[in-house]
């Protein structure tokens, strides 16, 4: 089972029993729930395509096929810029050194495959205190 990492530490996946719909669900004609609507986000899709439904979506699960593929960081930024307020999850074999960046671009949590989690204990995921040049330059 996948492991969920948040700024508070390791947690169980509270979405494990609920459905995550494919990205194209809005064009599929199927009935969608009024609540607890979650969507898969493969990292080669456009955030703009979700704009009409951003208010309805409760969770977006952005896929990280590999820790070295950083498209998800820009996708999170874009989704937040476009006004998405719901839960944002980074799903894939990321490394603990990416946790700080994930939080800074707008992710709420990381969904980690068990095999990767086994090598990276909870203390590795504690975000090291580090200043942010980007925040400093903007304020």
């Amino acid at each position, binding site marked *: 089972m996948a492991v969920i990492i948040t700024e508070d530490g390791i947690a169980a996946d509270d979405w494990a029993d609920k459905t995550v719909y494919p990205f194209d669900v809005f064009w599929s004609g199927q009935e969608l729930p009024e609540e607890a609507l979650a969507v898969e986000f493969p990292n080669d899709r456009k955030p703009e395509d979700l704009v009409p439904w951003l208010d309805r979506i409760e969770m977006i699960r952005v896929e990280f096929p590999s*820790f*070295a*593929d*950083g*498209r998800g*960081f*820009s*996708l999170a*930024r*874009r989704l937040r*810029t*476009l006004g998405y307020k719901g839960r944002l999850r980074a799903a894939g074999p990321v*490394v603990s*050194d*990416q946790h*700080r*960046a*994930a939080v*800074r*671009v707008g992710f709420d949590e990381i969904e980690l495959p068990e095999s990767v989690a086994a*090598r*990276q*204990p909870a203390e*590795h995921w504690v975000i*090291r*205190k*580090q*200043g*942010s*040049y*980007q925040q*400093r*330059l*903007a*304020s």
Partner: protein
Amino acid sequence: MYEYTDFDEAFVRERVAEFRGQVERRLDGSLTEDEFKPLRLMNGLYLQLHAYMLRIAVPYGTLNGRQMRQFAYIADRWDRGYGHFTTRQNIQFNWPKLQDVPDMLEALADVQMHAMQTSGNCIRNVTADHFSGAATDEIADPRPTAELLRQWSTDHPEFTWLGRKFKIAVTGSEHDRAVIKAHDIGLRLVQDDDGNPGYEVLVGGGLGRTPMLGKVVREFLPKEHLLPYVEAILQVYNLIGRRDNKYKARIKILVHETGIDEIRRLVESTFQENLARFNGVNQEVFDRIEASFAAPEFEPVYDVTPAVDAGLRSWIDTNVADHREPHYAIVTISLKGIGETPGDATSDQMRIMAALAEEFAHDELRISHEQNVILPHVPRRHLAEIYRRLKDAGLATANIGLVSDIIACPGMDYCALATARSIPVAQKISETFADIDRQRDIGPLKIKISGCINACGHHHVGHIGILGLDRAGVENYQITLGGDGTETASIGERAGPGFAYDEIVPAVERLIEAYLDHRSEDTETFLEVYRRMGPAPFKAALYPEAEARSNAA
């Protein structure tokens, strides 16, 4: 010069501590080598042919005497007593041990330096004109912009895991000494018709296996919009740049395949949307950065007595450029001694250069992309003494801009990627043309040598470019002609079949003989002759057998 704030200081110290932890996690197995690799690269640590290599940033090429002395200390304490200055205003140490690297980084932090983002698929050390703040043709000093970009790009949460490396260069002059057209983003400081400061923005330049010149994406970008605009370019690149093939992952390929007009449209719309979240740097912060690059307090004007000594005069002719203050000069110290490794300096030489900067030249040095060291602010009255001391240290070679002032990558002597040797080729060319009078007669000539297709030696923009390849286990050197890395940039054209290791230097000699035969007057340069006559006379000189055959037919 820019001095670290408490924030910079704390940031760099924390980064060293973080890397120390990463090294420990690699050693205890909680990080795989695959996972550790990008983390070490982001801290400048490569694995080379024989050992690790630590690449340290000299942001926009500017440093002071204390920092140069620290390089000497690092070279002696943890390496083999020398360092190698690169074409991207970095210094490389070729023999560090993994367990020593955190201490080396700590020693750098002690003098406000770092090795962050000198490698890896992130925004690399931002480079700038090495004559910044001293050049006679400067519109504005590009270094505050480069420092701003350095800060903004450091540990950027969105752009640290890009598809490929990303290089930005800035110039503030008409004459482009920073090769901005060969960078992922090139910035030129300009003013609009009302005199407001801003930038011309180029995108999609790069060398490597598919050389391309950058294209103008925005003719005039107001100064305050720099960061959101650059952010928009990076965001577009990060999202839609190719990741299926390492060799097609640079932004130049995206610009080429998508077209500059579509890229412009995407960047502009992203830029407009992002402005709501981030509308540019706090201008007070930028003002503070600018203030830290104020010119040194120049000496009062005096009359300069001309040099009489012939050696000194010859050195002044080639290695000394005019400064914006007429009683000052810009001195380029050649790291291209005849038969030496281009860009290498020993720890003793580093200490001598540091001392010269401290004693005579407002404590400032620069590293140029041409792998030389520069004293940007030298009162002319000190030139004779500086020359004398450089000569004693073997650093007074008067060859700047001439045939032996060669750019060469480390090649197969060090680099794991290289397919051929570059340094010995550079050394042999330099020995062949050792006579400085002969070099001066040949005039301005840029020879650039890369030991593999990745083109770290910038061969595509050399007047004569040499690319070393491996042909069935044998080194083979291709020649390109007519390249140019300045404001009149062009990519060199391949002359024809390559040459064996022992044929390449004679081939270069034949090219130069052909140039001397065809120049209309002594002042017509190699590049000018090439542009006037095209490749034909040079090809004839390179391949006399083919020429003879076609004449016989």
